[in-house]
Each structure stands twice: as C-alpha cells, then as structure tokens.
C-alpha cells in the first residue's frame, strides 16, 4: 500500500468514484477487536453515552470570574461555554476562557509532588510532602514565613489568610503583574470605591486612555456586551440619532483602539497633560465647575492647546474635535488604562483623567458605586506588583526561611533588576504550588502539583461586579486525571490548618465539605435561597451563580483628594524609545503560553503566531533602515532582547512595543524557547503614590543585528513597506484550462 503515489491514487479515485471503500482508511483501530469499549457499571439515569451533560462552574483564566458551563460526555470535559445566568458574561465566553480545557488536558501538567534531592527535583509522595511542610513550618517564627499568591477571592482566600495567621505571620503577599492597582487606588480616593461600576451602554461618548476594555482590561466579556449596546444608540434611545462614539488615546494600538472611531497616538506618560488640557477647554466652554475645588480649576488653566500639542504630540485640530465631541454629547465616560497609569506619575495621570468625569458630570450617570458586600472577608484580593517588591525585599534581606508560592511565577514576571531568582535562594525552603514545572517551580525545593481548574472546587467573587454582587461556584467538571498525584489547594490549606488549629477545623473532612457548610450556613445572605440546605446547595451547583443581597450605595465625589500635578516630559538621548510591554489577550502575564490553541491564534492586530516581535512605526523604521523581519536588539539599562521587527502604523513613532507572555525558559513544551520576555527589560521605576511597578516607563534603544527572518503571520505579504490589503492575493485563483493538475495537486 505504501508504494502507491498520489497520482495513482487520484486515478483510482476517479474509477471507483463515490463508492470507493473507506472502511480501512489506514486507521488500524477500526479493525474489529482492536479497541476496548468500556461500559458503565452503574450509570446515572441522566447519562446517555454520546450525549453531553452540562455543569456550571467558573472560569479562572483571568480575574473577571465569568460563569461557564462545561459539556461533559462519557465523563470527559469537551467544551466550555458561557453561563447565561451569570450577569458578568451573560452566556458569552472569550477565546482565553475556551482554552481552559487545554490547561486541564495539558501533557506538561505536573503529575506528582517533587522534592529537591542532591540538587535536582525528584518524585516524592504527598504524605512525605505534608510531613515536610509540617516540619519546615513547625518551629518557625511568624516573620520567617511568607506566602506569595496570585489573586484570591471567596473561601480559598479565607483559608489562605487563616493559615498565614495561624503561623503568626503577616507576610501574605497577593501579587498580580497586570492588575490595574493604580486605577483602583485613585478610584478609591475620588469615588470612595476602588471598583466603580461603568455603564458603557449608557454613554454617548467613551474616551479611553489606554483601557483595553474589549480585550484585556478588567472584565472584557462584560464590557464587550455593554459596548455592543453602546454602538446601537438608536435602539437604546430613539431620540438620539447617533450611535456611541469611541475615542482611544494610547501610545500603542490595542484591540479596543482598533475598534475606536478615532485612535489618537500619544507620547507615553503625557496622558495626564492631555486630560488636564481637555478639562481646561471644557471648563472654558461652559462645563459646570460643580464638585471641583478652586485649586483644581486654577491648576488646569496652565494647560492650553499649544502646550498640549508640544508636550503630548496630539495636534490642535484633533484636540479641538475632542473638546467639541465631549461638550456636545452627554453623558460620556472617560476611562484610565494601564498605558496611562504605568509611569512614575501614574496615579497623577489617572487622577487627571478621572477628573474629566467630574468635569463632564458623568459620576452618578455612567459611573456608579457597586453594591456593598455583606462579607468583606470573601471579597477579591486582586493583588498588585507592590506586593512582589515587598516580597523580594524580604527575600533580599534574608528575612524568610520558608516561603510558599501559589498561582504566581515571579521568576518569570519579575524584571531583571529585582534579582528575584538570586534572592529566592536566600530562603531555606521554597514550596511552589503549581500546575507546571515553570521557572519558579524549578527554583523551589518542594513542588506540589495542583488540580486543574476543571477538577477543583471553589467560590469566586469578582473584584469588578457589573450589577448586583454575584458569587460564582466552581465545581469539578470531571474526575481528576491524576487522582493520586494532584490536590486542591483548598484541601492542602485545610490539612495544614488542621496541623495548627485542629479543634477549629476538625469538622471539615475536606475542602468540599468546608465550602458546603460555609455556604449553607450563610444561605440567608443570598436571594432566592431555598430553606432546605440540600436544596440550596443543589441550586447553587446547578445554576453556578449565587446572587448576594448587597446593599446599593450612592457614589461620592472627592476631587480635592486628587493629586493632578504633572511632571514635565523628559527625554533620554541614550535610550530614545519608550517601551510598551503589550498585553496579549491570550497570554496575559505569560501563564497561558503553554496552550497551543493560544499560541496558534493569530495576534488580533499583527496576526503573528508562535513568536514574539517588536512593533515599530513604519516611518521610524524607514529612518533607521529597518525592514520587516530584521532581528533588532532592544536594550534598556537593565537588559536586552533580540526579536523580529514588525512594521506597525498603530504605534507612536517614538515608541516600540513588545508583547508580553513569551520567552519562557520552562513551563512546557509549547512555551519553552518561543519568543522573548520583555518583563526582564523593565526599568526600576515605580508609581510614586502606590509603589506599583511602572510598566510603561522603560526607555530603550533599538539597533539592528544584521540577522533577518521571514515573519510568520496570517495576513500575508504585501509589496508595500507596511502591510495593507493592497496587493494581497486574498484567494489565489487559476483558470481550470491553464492548470496542470498533476503539478498543482
């Protein structure tokens, strides 16, 4: 059979036509008796082989906590969809969420605990590991223990917090590299709440300073559905003829920027100056100065059009149009995003931007306060990067003997200047709770494998609540793939707490029991809760969403609390470019880089796959003699990376952008060795008021290395210096009579 070539095959296909036998098809498993087929021993009544059963759970791919339903067939999870009962995502689910099944079935998942013996990690057992944890935390002073965790909410947060307390330690560091922590802090000052509710659907105009709310910012699936309503203004308000208008102001185009009616590139760091200029012009053109302190009103007067143009690079004409748009159409909504907040004066930038909402009278109309959560101990701790700085300082000073790391990969995400990898070695005993042998787990002394999100129990309360507060349930969608190998962190925390506070926790056999008891005891806090405990629990699991009876509260405005002073923009002759570490929706901080679906998904704007690249403006590239595919060296004061050039008009000419998430030295077969990691380049610049790492404040220089590659991308190639549809063969065609099929096929 193997010596039949293609042409012979085609001939044969021609002879026998539709009746050609495909029974064998080279697939030996089709032979009778080649495969085993297992039946159920005792099936559930509702289980029919071949027909899916849906279970509700919560997506843990990002911090939005969307509700999901998983299709389970023959005991295996096949596909995730959005849960229509969740007000967060209303039945929708993004590509990142869909890809969660690939974390679950990932071939690189950790399958057994590993202990460092003689310099390398060797397999061990959970019994030995738990005994070791007891030993290494037993005679420890509280301050010698530290736990670095990713974002936490719900009952897991309580267990983790209680465990750290039980050790007499105050060192729980909740870290997330990409949380909008500066935004939260400034919102808290201005509105009295860190997470105000935004009503995109009620706005006539949205002006977003780098908030990529359609792709990577806060709760993208929720905002996308609000955005759809915003774009249908006529349906929403018959009297209003125009649909909503979106203006995006940012140094590097995001997916939201690509959807905007007007995309305005701006010199990084000068967003606050533009915002104050707008406030000044709006106040002059008659906006009410109500709620504005006199000091603010006088401070903005220094920002006139000429200054805006000079310092921000935004032309007078564009500025005027923006003022007209904002003064003519109301209500509007002004959002502050990471590209404005990632500077030493990030909080001032955010304050200046949010001040516009006060000037425009949006507060209370498109911005309202979230309902009050009756149990703050379950509220989301989103984490921030100041926590990493504090954790790293503790390590550097040798204060920690035993450290636990969960849901974070700081060896990968910490910039080079932190020297975190070296500092970690100063701790005697390092425990990584992980799904993969990632960069951090490789440095650990004990690696404990966790259940996948589709095997685990949990409760989640998203930090950003769109309507009333909802608690989303996480339940296993199938049996564990490695039942003796992986454990739930909830179970581990309970076991550890039993080592410390046996009396308090003896009533909870496992994490599942703990959740069930904790929730049913508080069922009065949820609306429509059945009186019977079992009925309540079954309802919680079958619907996946519990609505909390939260108290609605009015929003307050305190503009006097804001610091809006703007430093003068500075240049740097040696490092002339601003670096934008761009967030990709699929990879986020790099934790999802080992999912081949996401590697394979072309980047939304550049269409590149399976790699890193540096985006550079075509005019800048022309000036420097750079062509697409040239390997460039991007060097900051703290490190350098080399990657391929991609000419992109959606980047401000003095800025280069490198996407985050690639450049892994470990993690798994799909991530390792692919692309470069721009986290490493970041300069030690911190937001002055919150201590957050200023992600967008790094200066770099760009030089050619002489090497060149062909860029792998979906959009095809164009003879023009930048990529357009022009000249592209969308569908290659050839006349049938001209084709020599023996060559074409």
């Amino acid at each position: 059979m193997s010596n039949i070539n293609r042409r012979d095959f085609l001939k044969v296909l021609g002879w026998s036509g539709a009746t050609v036998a495909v029974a064998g098809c080279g697939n030996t498993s089709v032979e009778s008796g080649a495969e085993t087929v297992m039946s159920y021993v005792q099936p559930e009544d509702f289980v029919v082989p071949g027909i899916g059963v849906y279970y509700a759970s919560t997506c843990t791919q990002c911090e939005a906590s969307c509700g999901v339903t998983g299709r389970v067939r023959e005991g295996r999870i096949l596909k995730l969809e959005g849960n229509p009962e969740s007000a967060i995502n209303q039945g929708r689910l993004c590509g990142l969420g869909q890809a969660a099944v690939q974390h679950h079935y990932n071939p690189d998942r950790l399958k057994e605990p590993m202990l460092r013996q003689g310099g390398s990690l060797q397999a061990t057992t959970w019994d030995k590991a738990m005994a070791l944890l007891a030993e290494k935390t037993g005679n420890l002073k509280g301050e010698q223990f530290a736990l670095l965790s990713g974002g936490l909410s719900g009952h897991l947060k309580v267990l983790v917090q209680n465990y750290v307390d039980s050790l007499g330690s105050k060192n729980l560091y909740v870290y997330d590299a990409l949380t909008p922590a500066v935004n939260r802090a400034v919102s808290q000052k201005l509105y009295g709440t860190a997470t105000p509710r935004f009503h995109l659907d009620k706005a006539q105009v949205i002006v977003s300073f780098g908030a990529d709310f359609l792709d990577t910012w806060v709760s993208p699936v929720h905002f996308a559905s609000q955005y759809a309503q915003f774009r249908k203004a006529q349906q929403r308000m018959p009297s209003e003829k125009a649909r909503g208008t979106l203006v995006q102001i940012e140094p590097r185009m995001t997916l939201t920027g690509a959807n905007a009616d007007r995309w305005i590139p701006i010199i990084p760091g000068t967003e606050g100056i533009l915002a104050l200029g707008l406030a000044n012009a709006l106040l002059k053109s008659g906006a009410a100065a109500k709620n504005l302190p006199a000091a603010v009103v006088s401070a903005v007067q220094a920002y006139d059009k000429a200054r805006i143009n000079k310092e921000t690079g935004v032309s007078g004409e564009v500025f005027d149009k923006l003022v007209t748009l904002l003064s003519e159409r109301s209500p509007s909504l002004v959002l502050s995003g990471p590209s404005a907040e990632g500077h030493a004066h990030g909080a001032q930038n955010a304050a200046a931007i949010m001040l516009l909402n006060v000037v425009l009278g949006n507060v209370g109309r498109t911005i309202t306060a979230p309902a009050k959560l009756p149990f703050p101990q379950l509220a989301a701790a989103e984490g921030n990067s100041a926590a990493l700085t504090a954790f790293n300082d503790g390590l550097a000073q040798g204060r920690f003997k035993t450290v636990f790391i969960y849901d974070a990969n700081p060896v990968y995400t910490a910039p080079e200047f932190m020297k975190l990898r070296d500092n970690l070695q100063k701790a005697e005993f390092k425990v990584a709770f992980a799904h993969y042998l990632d960069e951090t787990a490789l440095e650990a002394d004990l690696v404990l494998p966790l259940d996948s999100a589709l095997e685990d129990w949990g409760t989640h309360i998203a930090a950003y609540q769109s309507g009333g507060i909802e608690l989303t349930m996480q339940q296993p969608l199938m049996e564990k793939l490695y039942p003796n190998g992986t454990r739930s962190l909830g179970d581990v925390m309970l076991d550890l707490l039993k080592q410390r506070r046996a009396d308090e926790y003896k009533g909870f056999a496992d994490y599942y029991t703990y959740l069930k008891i904790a929730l049913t005891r508080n069922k009065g806090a949820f609306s429509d809760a059945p009186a019977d405990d079992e009925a309540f629990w079954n309802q919680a699991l079958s619907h996946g969403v519990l609505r909390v009876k939260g108290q609605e509260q009015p929003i307050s405005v305190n503009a006097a609390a804001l610091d809006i002073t703007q430093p003068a923009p500075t240049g740097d002759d040696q490092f002339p470019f601003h670096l934008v570490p761009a967030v990709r929706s699929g990879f986020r901080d790099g934790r999802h880089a080992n999912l081949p679906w996401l590697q394979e998904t072309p980047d939304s704007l550049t269409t590149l796959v399976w790699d890193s690249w540096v985006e550079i403006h075509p005019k800048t590239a022309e000036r420097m003699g750079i062509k697409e595919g040239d390997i460039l060296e991007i060097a900051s004061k703290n490190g350098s990376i080399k990657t391929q050039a991609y000419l992109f008009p959606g980047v401000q000419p003095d800025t280069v952008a490198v996407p985050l998430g690639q450049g892994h030295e470990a993690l798994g077969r799909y991530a390792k060795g692919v692309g470069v990691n721009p986290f490493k380049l970041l300069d030690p610049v911190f937001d002055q008021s919150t201590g957050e790492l200023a992600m967008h404040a790094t200066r770099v220089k760009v030089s050619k290395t002489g090497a060149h590659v062909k860029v792998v991308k979906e959009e095809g190639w164009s003879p023009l210096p930048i990529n357009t549809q022009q000249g592209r063969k969308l569908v290659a065609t050839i006349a049938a009579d001209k084709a020599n099929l023996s060559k074409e096929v």
Partner: protein
Amino acid sequence: MNLNRFLCIAGQGAARRLAVGLLLTTAGVLGASAATAASKVEQPIEFPHDTHAGKMGINCLYCHTYARRSAVSGIPPLQKCMGCHQNIESVKDRPRIKQLFEYWEKKEPIPWKKVHDLPEFVRFSHERHVQRFYFKQERPIQEACMPCHGDVKGMTVAEKVQPLSMGWCVSCHEQDHRIDNVSAKTSNGPNDCWQCHK
C-alpha cells in the same frame, strides 16, 4: 451531583477528538475492504446473543437502551445484566455468569472489544436509523438492526458481517425507504458529504 460514580470511558477517543485528528491518509483509502467476512472477536465473556435475542426473544433495545436516543448505541451497563441475573437462580453456577458476578462485585466494567467500529471522521447516528426503521416503520426490531449487524440470533458474541464501508452505506442510502408505517411516501438516505463527515 456525584462525579465519583462517573466512569471514564472511551478516554482515548475523546482525547483524539479534541486533537481533531482528521487524517485522511490517501494510500489507506485503497486498503482493507477485506473486513467483509464475518470475523469473531474474542471477548472477556462469550456473551450469547443467541440465547438472549434468539431463545428468549428479548428486544435489542432492552439492553442496547441508548441506541434510540443517541448517536452511539452504548454497551449495556453492567447494572443492566445484573438486573435480571440476580434473579435467575437456574443459571447462577454457569461459568460465564460467575464471571459476570465477579465483575459486579469488584464494580469493574467488562473490557469488551469493539466489533463495529468506524473511523473518527465518520459520524453515524444510531438514533436516526432506529427511529426511522423501528419506531416509524413499526418493523420488527430484528429487521431494523439486521441490515448492519447481521442476524445476531445465530451468534454468540457480535460478529461484523458487513463491511461498514462508505460504498456499502451509500448503496442503502440510494434506495427508497418508506417514511413511516402509514403513508406511502418514500425517501432515500441523504447523500451529502457532511451528513456523515462533519
């Protein structure tokens, strides 16, 4: 919900479907239509279809209960066997029944070998065929199942008697079949590629 009672079956199949293994290797197309001849597969228990369907006259759908509701007919759950055999004292000492009880006591599924298998890129629905040829046409069940599965009344373990090849499927789809027991209307089976290859 109790997931513990789920059994993970057809694991490899599901994983392969996830990986979308649609590999239509060209040379293989020419291969084996050889499996036409009935071939008896060795099973962990030599299940006597002749006794159940033949001698006792039990309806196929009594045990293959999923065939009317799902694309796959499903191997009957062990509980199904026990539902009757726990109460049939006369055959309890027979070696095959002893084997059955052993599996039941261990709560282990019987590792049956697949006899009628199709490639992953073919979607065959038992439900469509059983609904049409059994329920709508009101024919005896044997007549509805026999065209593909042969006369099981004369077999112990199931044997593959038809090639289950595309040409063989098409040869039946080309014919006219009555749409139900009442009207004289007929229709043939679909011949769109995507009906089976989707």
